[in-house]
């Protein structure tokens, strides 16, 4: 039997006394490309942190491929790409190769060194995101879009089944966002990776995602992109709690 990539059952979480997530129930089916949308402060990042095991739910349970997230033995099943293109220290003196190699550190394990197979894997991951010619450049010399590709490569190098992305396209220009989604689409279609993507960029995302959830403390919508795009502005305003303009990129 094939287990869902993520199963959340009655998950609630509060910071101090402020409830951020209330009784969340949903599954990310294996092989899905799920987009998570919702207003700022709606609990999207908290959701990601819970799935990654950085926070523990006050209530409910989270399973990754049918294993409780706390007891998850094989953490390589999850790859994570954060908003790093903006946040990381641009002057950090490391080559693309070195950055991507850090994605294998935990996989290889303590007291072991990189061997030929690992080196090939690293170069392969860099190649997959189309950055092979930059492999030995300092990462600080690359553009934001290129850096974000490198962080995808770092997530890919340990060959995870589930890749979680937290607003990876923030601060990247439209052309590169498009290329970025093409890359995600490829990982989804050709390599059958399960993707969970948090984004504000609903316009482009609906073109590629297979499932969409809308989160604002509770789960307000869970369905197919067609259903999501057919929602009226009135429906969306209800989810978001304020008027919403649907931004379309179909130009």
């Amino acid at each position, binding site marked *: 039997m094939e287990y869902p990539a993520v199963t959340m059952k009655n998950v609630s979480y509060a910071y101090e006394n402020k409830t951020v997530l209330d009784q969340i129930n949903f599954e990310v089916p294996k092989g899905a490309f799920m987009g998570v949308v919702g207003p700022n402060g709606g609990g999207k990042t908290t959701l990601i942190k819970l799935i990654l095991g950085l926070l523990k739910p006050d209530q409910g349970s989270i399973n990754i491929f049918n294993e409780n997230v706390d007891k998850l033995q094989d953490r390589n099943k999850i790859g994570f790409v954060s908003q790093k293109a903006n946040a990381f220290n641009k002057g950090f003196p490391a080559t693309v190769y070195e950055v991507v190699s850090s994605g294998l*550190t*935990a996989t290889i394990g303590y007291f072991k060194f990189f061997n030929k197979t690992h080196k090939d894997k690293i170069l392969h991951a860099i190649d997959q995101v189309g950055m092979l010619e930059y492999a030995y450049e300092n990462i600080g010399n690359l553009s934001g879009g290129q850096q974000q590709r490198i962080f995808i490569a770092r997530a890919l190098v340990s060959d995870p089944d589930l890749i979680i992305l937290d607003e990876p396209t923030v601060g990247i220009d439209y052309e590169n966002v498009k290329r970025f989604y093409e890359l995600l689409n490829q990982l989804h279609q050709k390599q059958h990776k399960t993707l969970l993507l948090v984004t504000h960029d609903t316009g482009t995302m609906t073109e590629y995602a297979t499932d969409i959830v809308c989160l604002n403390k509770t789960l307000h919508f869970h369905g197919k992109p067609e259903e999501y795009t057919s929602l009226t502005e009135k429906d969306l305003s209800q989810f978001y709690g304020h008027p919403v303009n649907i931004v379309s990129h179909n130009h």
Partner: protein
Amino acid sequence: MLADFFQYDFLRYTFLTGLLIGVIAPLLGTFIVVRRLSLIADALSHVTLAGIAFGLMAEKKFGLMIGPLYSGMAFSVLGSILIEKLRSVYKAYQELAIPIILSGGVGLSVIFISVADGFNTDLFNYLFGSVSAVSQNDFLMILAIAIFVILVVVLFYKELFTLSFDEEHATISGLHSKRIHLLFIVLTALVIAASIRIVGVLLVSALMTLPVAASMRLAKGFKQMMLLSILFGELSVIIGLISGYYLSIPPGGTIVMVSIIILLIAIGIKRIKIRV
């Protein structure tokens, strides 16, 4: 010029010790700089001073021959663990741990020094380094520390790099970030204690950061930066020790000035590179 350094035992041990710290100080310094922890080295060196003062006081007042190198090392390692504790107490203001530990170190030093009614020359050597302070026993101890530090860095290189580049990602991928960090801080404490004989309390953090600052301008990638830092560290120590000896200046001063000259040259080279 080097002849004296091979002729006299005490100079030979100083020179060999210098070569060792020329490797281990920039080696750890690379991680310290990229993790923005440069000031921790300063705090720990002042705690080490308290340990040294304690050792000297115990010797003078109570006839306890602990040896200032050992008491300095013990204080430094304890201080490093304390800094980590404080950093977890003040999560939002982690840098507060540094002035707390630094001033604590100086405060304790003053107390131990005055209880012992002052130490005159010995203390001066510990502050600014000395070419004649390394005994055979000291050298062997520092050799052991150097071997241990290099071994641990080689064994944990990939973990240390991963943690330095992105702590959050390291934790998510299942590394024991906290334990690795603690190991790293303890190593730093050991290196500081080992370096103090040569460069002195006040300048030990310079030997950990200046060569790194210079190589950062020139290197491509982290490993290259590390190797270049060690090269600059060795150059500074060798030129600094020899010139310090012949000019009768404490080597701490000359080593740091050589490091600064190297740093200036590195910045100059980078400028020329950019123009070309």
